[in-house]
């Protein structure tokens, strides 16, 4: 289970970082979202992975750590709000700057290759 979980976090983070480094705002936003998924899973795992752990102390000798769950919940809420903000901002930038490049202007090489495709 650990290997599968770690691979999941790794793939999500790697894809997130790859998309984050793209030049257009839409892939960047998707990249940020994937990155925050990776982070949330990672935080969740920081309390160690266990199956069938009790949620309440005293009901069983094998209980799960409640703190990472609280941390993840907070991180999800914050991440959700920030994603909403950055989506609106990206749309505003598209309107204000006339294109969806993160620098506000499309590099010349980029425009050429797009014409060809």
């Amino acid at each position, binding site marked *: 289970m650990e290997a599968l979980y770690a691979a999941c976090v790794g793939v999500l983070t790697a894809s*997130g970082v790859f998309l*984050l480094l793209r030049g257009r*705002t839409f892939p*960047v936003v998707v990249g*940020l979202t994937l*990155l*925050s998924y*990776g*982070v*949330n899973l*990672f*935080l969740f*795992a*920081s*309390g*160690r992975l266990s199956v069938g752990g009790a949620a309440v102390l005293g009901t069983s000798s094998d209980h799960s750590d409640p*703190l*990472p769950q609280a*941390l993840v919940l*907070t*991180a999800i809420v*914050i*991440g959700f*709000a*920030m994603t909403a*903000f*950055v989506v609106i*901002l*990206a749309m*505003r*930038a598209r309107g*204000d*700057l006339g294109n969806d490049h*993160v*620098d*506000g202007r499309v590099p010349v090489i980029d425009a050429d290759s797009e014409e060809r495709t």
Partner: protein
Amino acid sequence: MQHLILLPLILPLLAGLLMLLPPIGTSRIRQRNFALLLSGVTVLISAVLLKQAQQGLVEVYALGDWAAPFGIVLVADRLSTLLLLLTSVLAFCSLLYTFGPREEEGSFFQPLLQFQILGINGAFLTGDLFNLFVFFEILLIASYGLLMFGGGKTRTRAGLHYVILNLAGSAIFLFALGILYGTLGTLNIADLALKVQLLDPRDAPLVQAGGLMLLIVFGLKAAMLPLQFWLPAAYAASTPAVAALFAIMTKVGIYAILRVFTMIFGEAAGTLSHIAGPWLWPLALMTILIGAIGTLAAQDLRRLIANLIIVSVGSLLAVIALQRETATAAALYYLLHSTLISAGLFLLADLIARQRGKVRDRLVSARGVGQDRLLGSLFFIGAIAVIGMPPLSGFIGKVLMLNAASSVQEMSWLWPLLLGSSLVALIALSRAGSTLFWNLAGSPAETERAHPVQLLAVVLLLAMPLLLSIFAAPVTQLTAATAQQLHDVHGQIGSVLLPLAQLEVK
């Protein structure tokens, strides 16, 4: 009196909400007056808290009465309260500046400013790393809004970079917190400092990775070298009152570096002590260099000041990287000075820009500034202070920092860069000043005179270096005591975790 420490958080939170509702929310004048009143009260509260902390006791406030490592605590020691006072003075002056004619201000401006202050105060007061993350997010989301107030292409572009960079930074922050919690089992700063000393050597590399990831995040906030490119554009694009308040934002990053890498990874941390030093020292020195180059290349006054902020960040981080008590004391004195003076210069740059017509603050030949004698003298005072020439506090701060380097190797790196950056600042500001005030073309513009309240805000901020230099002895004693308390890791751990120990005895 015990609950006083909570007020710097509760007041801006409630005020921000009240300002959205009638009767205050319906009029911008009422919003402004209310905000200023509250800001004045906060200055008083912070002063009282600082005075209490000067007795040398660390005040710990357990929220919900849950003792330290289990609940979230607020910790008011000398460092926190000193920075709290700095923030509230800065916020007061920034608010004062919004009393002038400001065309870009909407009805959400003042509430956002309050939430920003809440985030900054919280970051200084919290004793818990996850809570620090939450307060970082509060101050960031408020700053996203404030940065883009007024709209326009340059603001949107600068804002997009700032937001995306900081969101990536938040993700790294959470990764670091996950690593630290997974290995050390706690996120309370004092408890982390204790657990690091008892760490299993096999886990040490993982904790080191977590700690250095925190350095990346705080470096992004503080604008350390590879992560500083967002700063000039963002600061130069925002409205003046916001830019002035943002002067404290880089200091939040510096505070977090100081707190985490002195307390958790400080002298007492065994194999992991001083892990930040080898990274911080070269990066900070290069930050000074790149900031100095930026000052020379700046085409307008606000960008020039933003680059001076980068230089000051580099100087502060270089001195902090020495990780000695005297060095920290010197850095704290310079931190007070550089925050206040750069805020003052941002406001002054706006006053100058308004009287120059269309060219605004671009450093080109143009029609003269309307009130050239008054604004010119203020610019002269500000320039002397920020360059670090006697008699103002920049000079004292720089001498203290030069003194902090003790070995030959430290001196041979720090001295040339620090002194060289002062020379570059001198050249850049002389050039800027002579272009703004003497390189005139055509007849003087018919411009409005500077609004007296805005002028008052600038004068207040520019008077601070003078005060810091007149009262240099008490202030340096205060920063020395602050540094001494910060470096006394065992004392800090004891005062935060002691209530729990007493509980167990009962």
